[in-house]
């Protein structure tokens, strides 16, 4: 079954969908993220070699672009992509699964006769890549008779650079036993809590190395390392035949192993286990309109679904109508629609430190940046690619093109999209103290939103009743359901910069065939007035 949208947690914790190899990297660039070599511009290929382990790729790139041009392409790009993965899954006292993966291949994208064509092969030789270039041109020519307007690309400087994740400890070099032991230690701690029957701790990492070269002069090498640790604890009530789970809220990040080392995974295990047990005994929520306080560990996903997706330009113009859907945020509403309360600004940013979508350049070869999508409550901006910028009269792409592997066609994918913190130094505790009768939600649970991004319904991991400024008790069976525009306009308080936290997902789905994208969403906690709370309990029905 296709998973149409972001997914983390019980359903897709095994991140081994893609695969990858040991890549011997040069250590001199370690930790020097973007720009170290940006000043070197000529001779282009030699200067950009930086991380390249296989200089013969220079020859492959040149021959592939030449083959595409000779076959009649007016534009061509070639991406050589190597993806490495590692995953470990544990339950209780055992390691269930240890896996690593590698995939390597070449994708060639061309424009010929005004139409796109694409072909890809896992055979990384100049001959195979030249053949892919010719196949891609043949596909473009097959499509060309059915085009009404030729594809045009916004201009871009001929970027030549090397970029890589700023990290201290390469997670692929940390011994497997250390990783397994950490996860088993989490399970041991959680299992000490009476009532806990099951624990699932997991870890996955993905390193994406790619070389992009184009007939517009791009020659860009990047390596991006993403980690996803986490765990879920399940408590069982055998007498009633009921069960509840609680996840640790740790977010996947673009980072080194030091991120996992610094995270309080083991330290929090008992608390998370106790939450699962308390949740199982908690009273079922009374449905109705209530004030709602959302922790960043819950709110990031609401931002993803109701701000991130609607501002994808291809979606807004109907290019994703057959699968992901369209959007309420159509171009005629730009600069007019009051999408959120006037103190709220949502920004897109492919430079956020640690952000899963952070990189130096997108898969069109465009340098990444930051811009506003919603400014002081008003919808103002879109996510675009080189092909799309002209559709709304913008002179340059925002740099959001991405393909999830050598065999995938680059298209518009979500950058990191975040809610800026409020000017006041307000904390989660301040929001709780200011609330007379409400519900507090932490962690992401069940999530669903319609195909134009109006009606959403979200759950969470842990729910508390707030009375007279205090957390009174846990609740269960809670979901909140709202209309996007009404919801964001019902916000009356947000936290300050110190309360801002970066959540994210490794597996946002879009496109046909479906591709996976990773991106982060930062936000402070926020309070919303009189939101519709549902009771999801059908156990007695």
């Amino acid at each position, binding site marked *: *079954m*296709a998973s*149409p949208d972001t997914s983390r947690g019980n359903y897709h914790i095994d991140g081994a969908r893609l*695969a990858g*190899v040991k890549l011997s990297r040069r250590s001199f660039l370690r930790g020097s993220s973007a720009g170290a070599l940006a000043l070197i511009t000529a001779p282009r290929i030699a200067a950009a070699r930086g991380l390249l382990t296989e200089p013969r790729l220079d020859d492959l790139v040149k021959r592939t672009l030449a083959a595409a041009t000779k076959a009649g392409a007016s534009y061509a790009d070639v991406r050589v992509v190597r993806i490495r993965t590692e995953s470990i899954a544990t339950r209780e006292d*055992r*390691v269930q*699964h*240890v*896996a*690593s993966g*590698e*995939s390597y291949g070449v994708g060639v994208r061309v424009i010929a006769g005004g139409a*796109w*064509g*694409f*072909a890809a092969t*896992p*055979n*990384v030789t100049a001959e195979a890549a030249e053949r892919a270039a010719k196949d891609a041109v043949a*596909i473009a020519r*097959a499509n060309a*008779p*059915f*085009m*009404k307007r030729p594809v045009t690309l916004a201009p871009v400087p001929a970027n030549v650079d090397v970029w890589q994740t700023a990290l201290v400890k390469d997670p692929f070099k940390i011994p*497997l*036993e250390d990783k397994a032991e950490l996860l088993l230690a989490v399970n041991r701690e959680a299992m000490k809590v009476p009532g806990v029957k*099951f624990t699932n701790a997991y870890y996955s990492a993905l390193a994406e190395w790619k070389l992009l070269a184009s007939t517009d002069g791009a020659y860009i090498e990047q390596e991006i390392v993403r980690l996803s640790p986490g765990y879920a604890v399940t408590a*069982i009530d*055998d007498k009633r*035949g009921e*069960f509840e789970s609680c996840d640790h809220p740790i977010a996947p990040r673009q980072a080194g192993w030091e991120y996992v080392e610094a995270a309080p995974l083991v330290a929090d295990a008992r608390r998370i286990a106790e939450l699962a047990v308390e949740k199982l005994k908690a009273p079922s929520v009374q449905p109705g309109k209530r004030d709602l306080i959302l922790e960043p560990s819950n709110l990031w996903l609401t931002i993803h679904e109701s701000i991130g997706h609607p501002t994808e330009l291809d979606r807004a*113009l*109907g290019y994703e*109508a*057959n*699968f992901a859907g*369209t959007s*309420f945020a159509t171009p005629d509403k730009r600069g007019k629609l009051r999408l959120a309360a006037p103190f709220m600004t949502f920004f897109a940013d492919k430079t956020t430190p640690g952000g899963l979508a952070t990189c130096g350049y997108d898969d069109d070869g465009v340098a990444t940046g930051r811009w506003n999508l919603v400014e002081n409550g008003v919808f103002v901006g879109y996510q675009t690619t080189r092909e799309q910028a002209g559709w709304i009269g913008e002179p340059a792409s925002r740099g959001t093109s991405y393909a999830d592997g050598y*065999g995938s066609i680059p*298209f518009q994918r979500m950058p990191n999209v975040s809610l800026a913190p409020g000017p006041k130094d307000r904390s989660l505790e301040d929001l709780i103290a200011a609330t007379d009768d409400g519900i507090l939600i932490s962690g992401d649970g*069940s*999530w*669903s939103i*319609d*195909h*134009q991004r*109006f*009606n959403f*319904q979200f*759950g969470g991991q842990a729910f508390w009743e707030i009375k007279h400024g205090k957390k009174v008790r846990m609740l269960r069976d809670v*979901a909140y*359901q709202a*209309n996007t525009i009404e919801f964001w306009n019902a916000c009356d308080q947000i936290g300050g910069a110190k309360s801002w936290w970066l959540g994210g997902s490794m597996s946002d789905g879009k496109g*046909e*065939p479906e591709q996976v994208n990773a991106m982060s969403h930062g936000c402070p906690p926020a309070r919303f007035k009189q939101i519709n709370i549902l009771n*999801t309990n*059908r156990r007695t*029905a």
Partner: protein
Amino acid sequence: MQTSSEAKRLVDRVLTLAGATKGAEALVRVSSAREGNTRFAVNELTSAGDVERLTVQLTVQFGQRSASAATNQQDDRSLDDLVTRVVRMARLAPENPEAMPVLGHQSYTPAKTAVDPATVKLTPDVRAKAAAAAIAAGDAAKLGMAGFVRHAGESLALGTTAGLAAYHAWTTCEMSCTARTPDGTGSGWAGLGSNRMADLDPGALAKTAADKATASAQPRRLDPGRYTVILEPAAVASLAAFFAYSFDARRADEGRSYFTKHRPGDKLFSEAISLRTDPTDAALGATPFDREGLPIAARRWVDKGVVTGLPYSRYWAKKQDKLPTGVGGGWALDGGTATRDELIKGVPRGVLITRFWYLRPVDLQTLLVTGLTRDGVFLIENGAIAHPVNNFRFNESPIQMLARCDGLTATAIPSGGETDGGFRVPALRSHEFNLASISEAI
């Protein structure tokens, strides 16, 4: 896609390398695919590609220590690296009491005509013409048209150091399209899957989507509530999947499943409801063996409304003293004899639903699922379609959908959106379906 002999050669190369390590048991899986896809939207072709894929996955075990790794390269150095890496990882992996020895020789019953030669040979211009036919239907009806055409030839080969040798090849294809009215008030969809491109009629699919878009324009408001519903196959497949995929003996025995309280032998539904897995149904594109090489037989999990059993993994079967079943196979919900229009005729007041979107589990204990309607929702009054209505969010369980079902049509294999062509289902009529809130989306 690899032929049987190409795949076997590669499997044997890896087995020979892995088997050279003393005390190592090994399982090799080699999958390959040649896939073509074409997208269209806003009445134009938007992207198209042909992609080759290969995955060599190796699992090595030393007693209870086990690890896996995969590569998509098949040169000697890459395979050597793969074996070295997995052997090292397996030695370092903690002992797993659940690790089972690799399987020896097995016999399988595959679908007879899983590979359709014409679909293997399909070229990009055929996809472009299929897309063009849909676009032409959109242009003619003054509708926006978007959609997707995909086909693939795939193979999967398994081998173990204990003598297992399995190979299966198959084709899959799908086409779906969405038509939208220029004023943005109407939207219609159609999508089917098969293993033969000749089974998919681009013009007919586009016409269904276009007719639905036109008929669904300018919807009227209908209040949320519990309604009699006619669910078309795409809607049925996406919701029934949550029921089918929850069949698992271990989770039930552990007390964390719907099946903890509803055991084999329980009658959940009327005699009209039967749920099967069937790897011999070529159109579903399922393999006749699971990831470990265990045969998957065609079998019923619900027979005439009664749960007949739950799938057991090899480890859980051993622990509970049961037979392992193999996990997988194409799913099928048996159909009936009614037509969709006959189902509509019996409804004084109800709602006709084309498909669902963004389904997510809300409560695993009751299999409560939320999601939304999309691309054609109509009020039924006095046995006929009265007019289009707004979309809804639903909160409902597939158990209740099937328990309250009183009419089924012949089956189809919907594909696209939230259903991937691996589930054969009828349209059905059900009652008291909880359409919980209004969605403004069109």
